[in-house]
């Protein structure tokens, strides 16, 4: 900043003595043509009102292939500067910079603009400003480069009439300003922090939780200043459910890293209608506790993997899955069963190992098929998608609980339920082993996402055969240790002999199972809010009660006495009731984000009614204008639209004046009713904006990138129709 001030000062003092008389600048005018740039001073008002701020813009129209620079020019170059000469009391703000581009000039990285750019400056005339007109004089200087660099300057002048009310300029100019404003980064809706690695390289984390990695691309962080972050040709950002992580390279400055690292974050989001670019001004706080590992650098970007690499990662990942806290209980159970088998025929061991592997692989294949099928119909799938469904989460919690009770010895599974563990030996192991494999996969999926991101991202974004191959490779990895054990007699000899310790082990293993159930309930609260705990724990009590009832019966009589039937009936009712909680939970998935206290990242309903088809139809039938906003917590474009177009004071006021019924549909958890509406309108996802004018037969579908003026003009058109 001192540099900037010094330069500004220098310009003011010695401006006319510029070495490069590039512009014929003697009679100042609003347009100056230099060798490489046409510079023009524009205003978004035709007449200004004293006391009311307005915008002016320096427009640079460059020769093809030439570029001027952003506030941080990168590894070379200089930013455009404007020195103002203004009537007393009139103030000019700093340049409000549009989103820059990256230029790679033979390996030297620059940040700047090409073709045509409007640099915005806010002018505030004092309320006391008198006269018919006032004059804005700007001395602009810039460096413009293609292969060679040329400093140029222009003296520009704009005379504006003063009026009692500001009048907007001509539509063409207004359109230019509108475009320029849209091109300015908005304040980041997310907090950000950064840490410094041992080598001094900073890593930025933007805490945009819950984004969908496969829809986010081209992430780039433009540091606002030279010095602490190097200008890089390419940044390998990774998008996880935690947020956006951008490993950077330290800059040339030797001063300590700042308390806050400022810059502009650019990314593109794939939406149903195409790709949208978004830009945010980020200020990341230095987090001394965050010391990024150099190795995490490479965990980024699934698209950089080849199929072979992805298969290898998947296999490795599957192996590592065996150490996951969530798979561990199942695996431990398997180990116990295996110990029991020890000493049996080798062929039996082998059959057992193969059955387990088959169970794992079939489950992965089923999952792959589901992924491919869902992708074909919906468009995209995230890993762990099944856990998006609170019902699934609840059922898994029940399953863990019941398996835990079984391990504790509360009851024994009957032969018919031989699937999960106990009936293993009785059934000769094969079927049991198969289902243990299935169970291992079911509980493994929530564990995989965080660290298998690269291979999974690859799998989910690939054509069907590659998806299947990667998922199967992962399954093979998961099954491999056990398979190896069952195939290798040498390893088997290392296993301990069966004995009473096995019962103790089995009872002990109940506890990790209970812990897993607790964890699933926690997940459930994230999805459904605190009510989920009530339903889940209540359901568990009912299940335990049912098991107790059945146990009373199972001991005594073989023929069914009326008492047994009664107990069975009550037990069935209890189980049914436990599963009824499922319905209760499924009813209200939309409350997820708001109820769990994660309101900051959830969908905000302030001033909006919750969408339902009935409410929309009813309001429309009543002759009211209806605006529908289909949104999701993970949709960046939705968020941006809300900030710049839907929740601005002007739009809110206009909505109110036109008595618009504002409905918001939250698709964060794939609400079925909203999905059906989207489908009817031929949309695969959000954002989607509908506007029903009163009496209109069909809603108008607004573009997926909204502007305030777009909404205002829609609303004013119905106001006019009314008159």
């Amino acid at each position: 900043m001192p540099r900037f001030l010094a330069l500004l000062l220098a310009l003011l003092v010695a401006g006319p003595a510029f070495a490069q008389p590039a512009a014929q600048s003697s009679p100042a005018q609003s347009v100056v043509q230099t060798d490489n740039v046409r510079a023009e001073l524009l205003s978004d008002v035709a007449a200004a009102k004293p006391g009311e701020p307005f915008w002016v813009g320096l427009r640079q129209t460059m020769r093809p292939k030439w570029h001027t620079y952003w506030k941080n020019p990168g590894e070379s170059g200089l930013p455009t500067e404007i020195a103002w000469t203004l009537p007393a009391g009139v103030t000019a703000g700093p340049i409000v910079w549009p989103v820059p581009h990256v230029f790679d000039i033979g390996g030297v990285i620059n940040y700047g603009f090409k073709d045509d750019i409007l640099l915005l400056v806010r002018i505030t005339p004092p309320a006391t400003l008198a006269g018919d007109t006032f004059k804005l004089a700007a001395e602009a200087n810039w460096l413009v480069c293609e292969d060679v660099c040329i400093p140029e300057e222009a003296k520009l002048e704009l005379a504006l009439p003063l009026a009692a009310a500001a009048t907007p300029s001509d539509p063409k100019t207004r359109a230019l300003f509108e475009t320029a404003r849209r091109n300015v980064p908005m304040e980041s809706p997310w907090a950000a922090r950064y840490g410094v690695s041992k080598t001094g390289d900073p890593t930025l984390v933007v805490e945009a939780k819950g984004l969908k990695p496969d829809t986010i691309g081209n992430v780039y962080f433009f540091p606002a200043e030279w010095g602490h972050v190097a200008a890089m040709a390419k940044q390998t950002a990774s998008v996880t459910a935690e947020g956006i992580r951008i490993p950077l390279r330290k800059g040339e400055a030797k001063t300590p890293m700042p308390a806050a690292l400022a810059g502009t974050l650019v990314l593109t989001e794939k939406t149903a209608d195409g790709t949208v670019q978004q830009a945010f001004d980020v200020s990341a706080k230095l987090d001394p506790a965050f010391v990024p590992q150099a190795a995490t650098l490479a965990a980024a970007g699934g698209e950089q993997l080849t199929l072979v690499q992805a298969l290898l990662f998947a296999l490795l990942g599957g192996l590592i899955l065996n150490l996951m806290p969530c798979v561990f209980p199942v695996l431990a159970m398997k180990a116990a069963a295996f110990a029991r088998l020890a000493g049996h025929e080798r062929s039996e061991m082998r059959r057992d190992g193969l059955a387990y592997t088959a169970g794992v692989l079939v489950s992965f294949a089923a999952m792959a098929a589901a992924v491919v099928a869902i992708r074909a119909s919906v468009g995209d799938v995230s890993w762990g998608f099944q856990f998006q469904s609170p019902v699934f989460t609840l059922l898994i919690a029940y399953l863990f609980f019941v398996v835990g009770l079984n391990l504790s010895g509360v009851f024994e599974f009957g032969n018919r339920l031989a699937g999960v563990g106990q009936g293993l030996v009785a059934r000769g192991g094969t079927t049991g082993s198969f289902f243990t494999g299935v169970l291992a996969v079911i509980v493994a999926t929530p564990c995989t996402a965080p660290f298998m991101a690269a291979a999974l991202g690859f799998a989910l974004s690939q054509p069907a055969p590659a998806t299947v191959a990667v998922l199967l490779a992962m399954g093979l990895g998961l099954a491999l240790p056990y398979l190896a054990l069952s195939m290798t007699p040498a390893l088997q000899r290392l296993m301990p002999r069966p004995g009473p310790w096995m019962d103790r082990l089995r009872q002990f293993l109940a506890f990790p199972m209970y812990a897993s159930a607790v964890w699933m309930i926690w997940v459930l609260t994230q999805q459904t809010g605190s009510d989920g705990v009530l339903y889940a724990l209540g359901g568990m009590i009912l299940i335990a009660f049912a098991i107790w009832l059945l146990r009373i019966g199972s001991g005594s009589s073989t023929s069914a006495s009326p008492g047994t039937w009664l107990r069975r009936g009550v037990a069935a009712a209890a189980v049914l009731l436990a599963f009824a909680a499922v319905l209760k939970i499924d009813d209200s998935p939309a409350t997820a984000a708001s109820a769990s206290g994660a309101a900051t990242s959830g969908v905000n309903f302030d001033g909006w009614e919750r969408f339902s088809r009935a409410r929309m139809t009813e309001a429309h039938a009543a002759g009211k204008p209806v605006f529908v906003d289909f949104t999701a917590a993970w949709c960046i474009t939705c968020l941006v639209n809300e900030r710049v177009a839907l929740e601005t004071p002007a739009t809110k006021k206009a909505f109110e004046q036109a008595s618009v019924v504002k409905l918001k549909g939250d698709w964060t958890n794939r609400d079925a009713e909203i999905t059906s509406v989207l489908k009817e309108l031929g949309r695969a996802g959000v954002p989607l904006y509908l506007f029903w004018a009163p009496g209109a037969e069909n809603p108008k579908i607004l573009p997926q990138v909204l502007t305030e003026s777009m909404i205002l003009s829609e609303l004013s058109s119905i106001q006019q129709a009314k008159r």
Partner: protein
Amino acid sequence: MSNFSVPRRSLMLGLTAGGAALALAPAAAFATTSPDVGKPAPLFTAVDSNGKSWSLADLKGKVVVIETTNHDCPYVRKHYNAKNMQDQQREAAAKGVVWLTTASNAAGEQGAVTPAQANDLTTRRDAAPAAVLIDPQSKIARAYGATVTPHMYIIDAKGTLVYKGGIDSIPSSNVADIPKAKQYVRVALDEVLAGKPVTEASTQAYGCTMKYPRTST
């Protein structure tokens, strides 16, 4: 990866090792890398405009200045037109400093010169470097990560890079700014010769973009 929120962070802790094992993807290669101040300066050998060979290794015991140049660059012209560059070259020579001007823009680009042109420029501009190195393959510039002309470097008697950055503190093409600017190189040289550490050892260089050979990136 998904919308589904679990305590990833706690899981991640346990997984760092696994993650590291998976991190086999190649890291991005950077176009220009600049040696750090305080580290040994990259060695080079180059031929000057009079056919004499210069090697940095032979200059141990002497303080060396490297100045990248492009005589057609307005920022280089600023400092030569104002005699700022020549004055500093003479001051340096008087103190026993070896000042190497290097014409490192790639052959065929603006600023690339033949030995004869280089000598002609030295005469016309009344310049006084110890030598003008002819570097049409940009080897020296690349070794030092130069991004602009003029980009300035100071190497102490032990061969350590002690300064890199701009010639002065006001990035403009205006000659009138020179007296107002802090002359980084002059200040740093005085500090080095006095045996003191350089206060501002890495500054923002300004000027015209360095023109590297097109094929090599």
